[in-house]
């Protein structure tokens, strides 16, 4: 089986073989990106529109570069300054853009489910670049590719996801993906930052970091948003760092060859010690950024192929 999706809205609808197919293609694009010419014509003649209703530098740059390396015409729309401010609804924006015949729409939106809603109204392939607290599928894919290349496999690994799970779409997509690939996923964080019903997802929940990262093969740290630090969810930044920040002492409890990941941007000294983030023997944070471009190239390539094979007109 190969990749059969028309959109990449989340990890939830994907079959494990689709995840593998995407990662296999991404591996090839890693090689391309490391070569001298860095160019392919896979998306030549196609139009990619990046619609970001929420600020992003890294993800947007990664998608833009991925499209350009595959020969697509890439347009960035900063939706925060556009007509949505003038009261235009998301549906109207979608219909307007649809009339311009894009082939790939990359969308980030602050509300969960907004990208699904938009995908129902357009003819082209839609890629979710993060919707609210719901999913961020390309981030989970790039994390998976990083793990697979570092560990040589993407199954039967002990993976600890640590920090603010409650507000993280990265965590949700990773839990789904790593679960589908049959890994043992642990969630580590204060109870106020673990969403309810998590134990029903087939994961183990730990509130004690030492227990949670014991013998872990992968330690995945999450960003703690500044606005959540004071009093609301945790007592203080320094208490959080003491209990849940990744330092050498805590990392020593993980497997000796454990890798450290972070989706960025990092708060050094809040969720992660600066020395660990920079330790090239443990940290794969820079590799994650590199894999991001390759995974997005693979995702857009596969979706474009599916749309070429089975064009569709949606009722709008």
């Amino acid at each position, binding site marked *: 089986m190969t990749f059969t999706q028309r959109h990449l809205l989340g990890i*939830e609808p994907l079959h494990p073989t689709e995840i593998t197919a995407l990662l296999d293609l991404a591996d090839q694009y890693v090689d391309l990106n490391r070569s001298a010419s860095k160019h392919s014509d896979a998306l030549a003649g196609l139009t990619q529109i990046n619609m970001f209703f929420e600020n992003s530098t890294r993800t947007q740059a990664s998608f833009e570069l991925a499209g350009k390396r595959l020969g697509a015409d890439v347009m960035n729309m900063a939706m925060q300054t556009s007509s949505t401010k003038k009261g235009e*609804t*998301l*549906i109207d924006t979608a219909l307007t853009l649809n009339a311009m015949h894009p082939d790939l729409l990359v969308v980030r*939106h602050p*509300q*969960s*489910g*907004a990208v*699904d*809603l938009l995908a129902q109204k357009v003819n082209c392939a839609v890629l979710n670049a993060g*919707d*609210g*607290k*719901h*999913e961020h599928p390309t981030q989970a894919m790039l994390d998976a590719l990083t793990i697979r290349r570092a560990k040589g496999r993407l199954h039967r690994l002990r993976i600890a996801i640590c920090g603010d799970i409650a507000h993280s*779409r990265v965590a*949700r997509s990773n839990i789904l993906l790593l679960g589908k690939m049959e890994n043992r996923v642990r969630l580590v964080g204060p109870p106020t930052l673990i*969403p*309810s*019903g*998590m134990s*029903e*997802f087939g994961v183990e929940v730990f509130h004690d970091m030492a227990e949670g990262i014991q013998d872990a093969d992968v330690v995945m740290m999450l960003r703690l948003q500044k606005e959540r630090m004071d009093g609301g969810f945790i007592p203080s930044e320094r208490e959080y760092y003491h209990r849940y920040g990744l330092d050498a002492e805590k990392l020593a409890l993980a497997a000796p060859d454990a890798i450290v990941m972070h989706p960025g941007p990092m708060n050094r000294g809040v969720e992660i010690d600066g020395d660990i983030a920079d330790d090239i023997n443990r940290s794969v944070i820079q590799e994650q950024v590199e894999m991001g471009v390759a995974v997005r190239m693979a995702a857009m390539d596969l979706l474009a192929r599916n749309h070429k094979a089975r064009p569709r007109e949606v009722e709008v």
Partner: protein
Amino acid sequence: MAPRLIRNIKLVDPETDEVATGWLRILDGLIDACGTDPAATLSSDDVTDGRGLYCAPGIVDLGVKVCEPGERHKESYASAGRAAAAGGVTTIITRPDTDPAIDTPEALEFVARRATEDAIVRVHHMAALTKARAGQEMAEIGFLKDAGAVAFTDCDHVIADTKVFSRALTYAKAIDALVMVHAQERILSKGAVATSGKFASLRGLPAASPMAERMELDRLIALGEMTGAALHIDQITTARALPALARAKANAVNITAGTSIHHLTLNALDISDYRTFFKVKPPLRDEEDRQAVVEALREGAIDVLSSMHTPQDEESKRLPYEIAAAGAVALETLLPAALRLYHADALTLPQLFRAMTLAPAKRLGLDVGTLRPGAPADLVIFDPDAPVMIDRTKLESKSKNTPFDTARLQGKVRATFVGGECVFGGLDA
């Protein structure tokens, strides 16, 4: 006017808890007589055979939003009346959460006039308990009661100021007014569009614990005990609120409770991929909660079943789930959806009709909701087995926001009588 006799019909009597084949005679807009003995001795020029059909008191729907004044494009008294008649609802009790709110006698007189002119079913109105439903100052509840308000409510606005709330309840008690209240702790449920749990976590939706309901209910019970006011909880939707409700009733607090057809027949998983027509307030609950609510309705711990009819236009629903408007239209789907529980052997017809007719009528002091001779001939004649597929575009409501679109249900209204007049369908065809 000549008497009209319907015979060979199954009479659903919520007072005796029985369903029996019998006859019913209508004279001058009232139920003249009814019985289960052979009807041959009765004479009438106008005889209808109701073989295969059921006759019950017309539904009394407590808590219907008609969007006049303010949003007539969503629902008018004319369209709400037609929708009600088509759904076997013969009395609608409107909510005051219009724009502006019904919080003065003048506003009440306006909607009463609109209802009298345009609606083909009976309409009674509730009025706001506080001005603009803002929870700051009491509305003129004495004047409003004189002008015809049957109950007082700030709808889904929970009054935060306990002093204001307790004084309003004390005042309402003195004039024998019923107060309908919403049991969701306001800080905990603020911004929540889902019930916390696996589903909300998976979808990344802001969620509140189901305990928000129990917390506010405890506060309301204490206020009821303190003031002696007659309280009706608009919707009880969670299992963990039920023991507190039962205790309050046992302690003789003057309290009754309702639930909505959506909480009785749907659960959070029905929201699926962010289907905004399933966004209601409070949010849909887990299956265990739904089952507990069905059980409570069977035992009478929950007294009233309502549609909580809330029209919303397409624009307010075609938005990301978090910011889409809450509410669903349900006047026309209330009966067929409720019959799901009858077909599932969860509730009997008298149990369902007690909650949709007798119980709300009694609580509001209305003379409808019964088959007793002398009562107004407000009746619904229906076939509980007839299959229907709900097509939202065919609804009489101006707004089409039903979660039951394309649902296959059983139960068709054949005729609706209000004061002996047929306002929907007919029996002769």
